[in-house]
């Protein structure tokens, strides 16, 4: 009886010791997982990038970047813009790189807010119909890097002042004033205005993204009114440029307060009568459009004089 009890006890303690031993063997795995998770949270950053979408528009999207220094971020973005570049796997579905295969950024220089990019000659192998879009993609992506407002483009040390195939001229120093996805709706020479409007579209996975379009039009209205008029006008589905702003939405008034802008709409800014919410796509389309046309840092939305 005593012998049987002792054997049972020995068995119990052996199992217990075995479990303790196993715990002692693998404690590092737990802490490793935790550390990895923490590190991952700290290091993930997203950065704007302007890639070509399925309809041929240069579109605003973003990618994860691992770099933190400005120079490294520039290198990573240029590599991502390059077809078959090092970071192709970062490109979201529905978008494509646009710089020709094997294009290399030979060197770069940052002087205050001016970035000079010196590319290899492969950049000139761009197809004629894409030449301007390549420049748009570079300008918009690079000026989304903090502190960069102007771009100079060189090819093997020589400033690029003319696109070789289309013959289009380039200023020595470029900025967003160059335009993007340009559309010309001019029928007379009076009151020609240039306005940037951000439309939206969806990827096949139903993710919304934004498409800036520089429109040349005849109008004697202020740019803010033109933006709202354009975003409320009937959308042509053929153009693949969408706006979620209700057709009946009206901008009642607006005012600038230093670098802030107050916009006061009627109730049609809301998604529906019952739901007093404004669609995220509406807020982004209006805000991006205004930020690219005016020097404002904050936009406040009101509906019938009540802040939302």
């Amino acid at each position, binding site marked *: 009886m005593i012998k049987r009890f002792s054997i049972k006890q020995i068995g119990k303690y052996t199992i217990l010791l075995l479990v303790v031993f196993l715990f002692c063997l693998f404690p590092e795995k737990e802490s490793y997982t935790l550390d990895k998770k923490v590190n991952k949270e700290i290091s993930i950053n997203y950065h704007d990038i302007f890639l070509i979408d399925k309809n041929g528009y240069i579109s605003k999207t973003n990618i994860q970047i691992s770099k933190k220094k400005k120079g490294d971020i520039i290198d990573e973005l240029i590599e991502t813009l390059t077809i078959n570049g090092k970071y192709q796997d970062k490109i979201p579905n529905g978008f494509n790189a646009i710089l020709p295969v094997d294009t290399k950024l030979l060197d770069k220089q940052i002087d205050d807010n001016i970035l000079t990019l010196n590319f290899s000659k492969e950049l000139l192998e761009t197809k004629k119909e894409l030449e301007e879009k390549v420049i748009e993609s570079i300008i918009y992506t690079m000026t989304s890097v903090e502190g960069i407002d102007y771009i100079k483009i060189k090819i093997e040390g020589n400033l690029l*002042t003319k696109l070789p195939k289309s*013959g*289009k*001229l380039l200023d*020595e120093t470029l900025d967003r004033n160059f335009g993007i996805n*340009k559309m010309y709706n*001019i029928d007379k*020479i009076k009151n020609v205005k240039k306005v940037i409007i951000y439309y939206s579209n969806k990827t096949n996975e139903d993710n919304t993204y934004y498409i800036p379009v520089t429109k*040349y039009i005849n109008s004697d209205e202020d740019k803010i009114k033109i933006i709202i008029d354009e975003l409320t006008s009937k959308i042509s589905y053929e153009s693949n440029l969408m706006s979620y702003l209700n057709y009946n939405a009206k901008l009642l008034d607006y005012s600038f307060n230093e670098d802030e802008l107050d916009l006061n709409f009627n109730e049609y800014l809301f998604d529906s009568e019952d739901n007093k919410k404004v669609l995220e796509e509406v807020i982004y389309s209006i805000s991006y459009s205004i930020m690219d046309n005016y020097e404002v840092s904050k936009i406040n939305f009101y509906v019938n004089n009540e802040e939302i």
Partner: protein
Amino acid sequence: MSKGILTKREREVFELLIKNNSTKDIADKLNISEKTVRNHISNVMQKLGVKGRSGAVVELLRLNEISL
């Protein structure tokens, strides 16, 4: 700006034309006659192969020969 298809004078005329200046305004600002202004505009339209002034403006904007 590097040299494109416009002469310096033609570019000056169109830069003013796009900013709502009349032929007379342009002539006064550049110290040339109205007829010379019209000749410059006409020459540019011929170079571009377009008929109206607005067509010329669109084409020059497309080519980045002038900007707003």
